[in-house]
C-alpha cells in the first residue's frame, strides 16, 4: 500500500517534470536560443574548433529545435522522478507542511542546491566560451560542486530539524541558514576558479545567455513545484492510514 504510494508519486513526478520541461523548453527556445546563435556566430568568426562548427552530423536547425526539446524534456522527466523520490523522503519529515507546500519547498530547495549554488561558482557557458582541453576538469568540478551543494543542503535541513526543539523554529532556521551560507562559502573558496571567456567575447551576450539559463531553471522548478504539488495532493488524498473505513475504493485518483 505504501509502496503503491511511492509508485504513484514517482509517476506523477515524472509527469510534472514533463510539464515543467515543456514550459522550460519555451523559455529556452525564445530566451536562450538567440544567445546560443550569437555565441556560435562568434565562434565561427573566430575560425572555430567546436564539433558542431565545421561538419556537423546534426544540423543547427535540428539542434536548436528537436535536439533542444529532447535534452530539456528528458532533463525534466528525469529530475521530476528524482524530485518525486526525494519528496517521498521529505513528506512529513521536514515540518508541518501539506502536500502542496512540501512540493513547492522541495522544488525551491532543488533549484537552489542543484542549480543556483553551483552556478554561482561555475556559471553556465555558451558555445565558444570554454577551452576544450579543460572540458574534463570543468565537468568534474561542476558535478563535484553539485554533489557538495546537495550534501550541504541536506545537512542544513537535518541541522535545522535538530536545533528546532532547543532554539525554536525561527532561530533554528536562521542558524541552519547561516551554516548553509558558511559551508557553501568554504566550498567556493577551496574549489579552483574557472574563467574560459575568450578575448573579445561580448559581455552582454554572456550575460544574456547566463540569465536565460537561470530563467530556464527557475521556470522548470516553479512549474514542477506547482504541478507536482497538485498531483501529489490528489495521489495522497485517500490517506489509507487515516480512514480505515472508507478506503476500499479510492475513486478520485486517476490512473
Amino acid at each position, binding site marked *: *500500500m*505504501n*509502496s503503491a*504510494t*511511492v509508485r504513484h508519486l*514517482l509517476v506523477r513526478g515524472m509527469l510534472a517534470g514533463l510539464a515543467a520541461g515543456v514550459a522550460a523548453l519555451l523559455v*529556452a527556445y525564445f530566451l*536562450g*536560443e538567440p544567445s*546560443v546563435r550569437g555565441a556560435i556566430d562568434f565562434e565561427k568568426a573566430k575560425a572555430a574548433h*567546436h*564539433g*558542431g562548427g565545421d561538419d*556537423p552530423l*546534426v544540423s543547427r536547425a*535540428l*539542434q*536548436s529545435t528537436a*535536439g*533542444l*526539446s*529532447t*535534452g*530539456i524534456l*528528458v*532533463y525534466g522527466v*528525469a*529530475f521530476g*522522478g*528524482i524530485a518525486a*523520490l526525494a519528496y*517521498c*523522503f521529505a*513528506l*512529513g*519529515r521536514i515540518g*508541518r*507542511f*501539506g502536500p502542496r507546500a*512540501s512540493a513547492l519547498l522541495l522544488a525551491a530547495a532543488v533549484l537552489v542546491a542543484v542549480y543556483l549554488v553551483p*552556478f554561482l561558482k561555475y*556559471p*553556465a*557557458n555558451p*558555445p565558444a566560451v*570554454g577551452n*576544450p582541453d579543460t*572540458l*574534463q576538469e*570543468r*565537468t568534474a568540478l*561542476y558535478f563535484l560542486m553539485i554533489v557538495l551543494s546537495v550534501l550541504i543542503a541536506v545537512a542544513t535541513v537535518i541541522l535545522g530539524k535538530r536545533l528546532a526543539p532547543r532554539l525554536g523554529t525561527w532561530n533554528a532556521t536562521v542558524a541552519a541558514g547561516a551554516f548553509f551560507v558558511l559551508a557553501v562559502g568554504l566550498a567556493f573558496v577551496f574549489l579552483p576558479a574557472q574563467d574560459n571567456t575568450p578575448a573579445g567575447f561580448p559581455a552582454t551576450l554572456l550575460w544574456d*545567455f547566463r540569465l*536565460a*539559463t537561470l530563467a*530556464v*531553471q527557475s521556470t522548470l522548478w516553479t512549474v514542477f513545484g506547482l504541478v507536482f504539488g497538485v498531483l501529489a495532493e490528489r495521489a495522497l488524498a485517500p*490517506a489509507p*492510514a*487515516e480512514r480505515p473505513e472508507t478506503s476500499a475504493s479510492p475513486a478520485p485518483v486517476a490512473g
Partner: protein
Amino acid sequence: MAQSIAQPTSTTAVPATLPIGVIAPWAFFFGLLMLVLLYFVGAEQGATAIFSGTGVHEWVHDGRHLLGFPCH
C-alpha cells in the same frame, strides 16, 4: 503504519511519513535510471563517452548548454 507522534486526530493537512524501507528500493533503482538519463543529456560524448562519435553530443548540444552543463 508509520504513525507520527502525537497525532491530534483531527483534520491536519500534514501527510503521514512513508517508511524509509519502502522508499529505498524505488529510490535506488529509479534514482539510478534517472541519473543515467541525466548523464546522457549532461555529459555523454563530452568529458566521458560510452558511445563513440559525436551524435549524442550534437543532438542534445543546445540543451546541454542551456541547462548549465559544461559542453565543450
